[in-house]
């Protein structure tokens, strides 16, 4: 009985949940402003949810978590910077950014999919390094691209775009503030949560269409899928396109909530954080559900939000960044070192 429970919840998920509960209790007993902490948790959850959901298509299609997420993220950053370059404001800017990002992200996902289909079995390693290289290649782009908006280029000469672009007055926290209300001192970012819910619903719908179901079959048993006439490569390609497009839209939503667009090296490790979030939620390298993505996003980001003030009081030092590195990479190592179960036929 005990074992069955452990298996169902998963040891990492259990440990992280207990740790989070412990930190919440600690924060409470230190008399920290819980309202603020909880609203920060909700915001961080909404900020990251779409980036984590983007892991689901590739995992389901058997290509593993999408370590090549930077391909999509880069496109989102292009969309967002273009919106400012064209001097758009408010929801126009946001919708424009997302509208540009998604097709660009889909195109990048198509290119990435071509690569993925040639490196079956090594998607994670290849994806990681291809992601790293595209981020560093784009560093040159940010430096050379002919942007001219004074909000984005350096004020006193200097090459290229700034490292962080402030979104103040453009689309800063637009979704967060949409219909937002305060309850028990906790600000609820209603718009952000609604967008998250909408994304989940759309993904849920997609996974239940013929294409979505076929994609999952391709992932769980490629031989069987091939035998029943499904083209494995085609569905892996769809997954890659979908994942990168979601990553592109995801980073726009992330940026508007954060209030800054982070360029240059910033997207380097973003894929890793999304991968670890979904793994914390209980997903494996072969199977993932929307619920797991949401739980994982909440646990991972909740932990990071609350660790900072608690560690400041208890240890008088900033341990949260270190903890983020240890937890996120530790969970990926755990997943990598587990014996693969299920019908991987490669």
């Amino acid at each position, binding site marked *: 009985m005990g074992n069955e429970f452990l298996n169902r919840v998963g040891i990492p998920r259990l440990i992280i949940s207990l740790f989070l509960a412990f930190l919440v209790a600690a924060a409470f007993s230190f008399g920290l402003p819980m309202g603020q902490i909880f609203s920060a948790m909700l915001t961080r959850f909404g900020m990251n949810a779409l980036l984590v959901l983007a892991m689901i298509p590739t995992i389901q299609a058997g290509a593993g978590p999408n*370590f090549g997420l930077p391909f999509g993220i880069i496109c989102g950053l292009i969309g967002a910077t273009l919106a400012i370059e064209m001097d758009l404001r408010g929801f126009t800017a946001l919708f424009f950014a997302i509208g540009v990002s998604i097709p660009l992200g889909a195109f990048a996902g198509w290119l990435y999919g071509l*690569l993925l289909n*040639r*490196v*079956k*079995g*090594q998607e*994670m*390693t*290849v994806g*990681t*390094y*291809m992601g*790293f*290289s595209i981020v*560093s*290649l784009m*560093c*040159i782009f940010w*430096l*050379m691209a002919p942007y001219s908006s004074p909000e984005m280029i350096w004020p006193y000469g200097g*090459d*290229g775009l700034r490292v962080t672009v402030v979104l103040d007055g453009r689309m800063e926290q637009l979704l967060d503030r949409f219909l937002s209300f305060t309850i028990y001192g906790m600000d609820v970012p209603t718009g952000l949560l609604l967008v998250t819910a909408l994304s989940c619903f759309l993904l849920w719908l997609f996974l239940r269409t013929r294409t979505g179901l076929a994609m999952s079959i391709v992932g769980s048993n490629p031989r069987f899928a091939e035998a029943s006439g499904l083209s494995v490569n085609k569905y892996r390609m769809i997954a890659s396109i979908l994942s990168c497009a979601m990553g592109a839209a995801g980073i726009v939503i992330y940026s508007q909530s954060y209030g800054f667009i982070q360029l240059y090296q910033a997207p380097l*490790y973003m894929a*890793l954080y999304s991968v670890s979030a979904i793994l914390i939620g209980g997903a494996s390298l072969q199977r993932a559900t929307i619920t797991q993505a949401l739980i994982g996003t909440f646990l991972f980001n909740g932990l990071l939000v609350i660790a900072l003030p608690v560690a400041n009081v208890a*240890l*008088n*030092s900033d*341990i949260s960044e*270190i*903890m983020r*590195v*240890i937890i996120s*990479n*530790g969970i*990926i*190592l755990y997943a*990598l*070192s*587990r014996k693969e179960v299920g019908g991987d036929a490669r």
Partner: protein
Amino acid sequence: MRHVQKNIVPIVFIILCSVGFYYSGLSWMFFANDLVTRLARNSFLVISLIIPVLAGMGLNFGIVLGAMAGQFAAFITVVYNMTGLAGFLMACVISIPFAILFGWLTGILFNKAKGKEMITGLILGFFANGLYQLVCLIFIGWIIPISNKALLLPSGVGFVNTLDLKIWQYAIDKFYVFKLKGITIPGLKYLNNINFPVLTLLIIALLCAGVYLLFKTKLGQDFRAVGQNRHIAKIAGIKVDRVRIIAVIFSTVLAAWGQLIFLQNIGNVQVYGSHVQVGTFAVAALLIGGASVSRATIGQALLGTVLFHALFIVSPLAGKNIMGSAQVGEYFRVFIAYGVIGIALALHAWQRLAKKKNE
């Protein structure tokens, strides 16, 4: 023609470096001196990658842990103020137990993730870096007492960002410096006025000979056998898991020494940064030399180190002169490092898939 095809990667980089050198406008003497320094400083780290490659574990991104072991040893010599050549050698000795422990743990993990060693090693490097920061930033001065407060941050907890290693800087590099002068023979006159750190180069030569000889021994043959086919090796009575762990331990210890050689040349240690890129840069150098995920030689390691660092020297200035910005060159070389690894890994996976299909 087949020769060209086989060595296409180094050839492309020789061309790239030549073009870069031309546009950088650097003098030959400056360039060559810098290159020799960098060769002496980095080749040990690159060679440390060879054993795991031949043992079939791919490129060991886990050498970051070896570099950490080296740095822990360096910290200890700084705290106890061990100076000069003796201090440096002491650091090498102290690093061994750390490196063996780290290598052993890495090996166990790699055995649990067979076939995924590279991504595991990469993530392990990040993970270990988190633990390393926990030790250096939080535990030092709090759980681990340090008497010399000058090494700590103002709060008394955690190492400062940069620790000075003047106590054994150039311990082996300046032990004996050889410099040619007044040579007039046409092809050889380019060697004039270049400083050769003889002892360092000698140590590297010894290491090369050592690795070469290792593969003549029974253990070396076991590495190869495991690398070619784990199942056949197992049937032949080789303890595969044990051999793989030994290969990683070798690699980690060598990386620790490599990092110490690197640090004695630089003369300080960026406590939170010196080790981070070690794996990526060493792997990129090895691949640029023409190695692949399953095949690497000492010659490729040395050639790769020369080419990779030649690119490092010329790219900022070349970037400035061609594109009008030194930053472009900086980003370009980072892109090259990542891109080369990405492409090499992709080609390897692709070829393996194609081979599987043909069978």
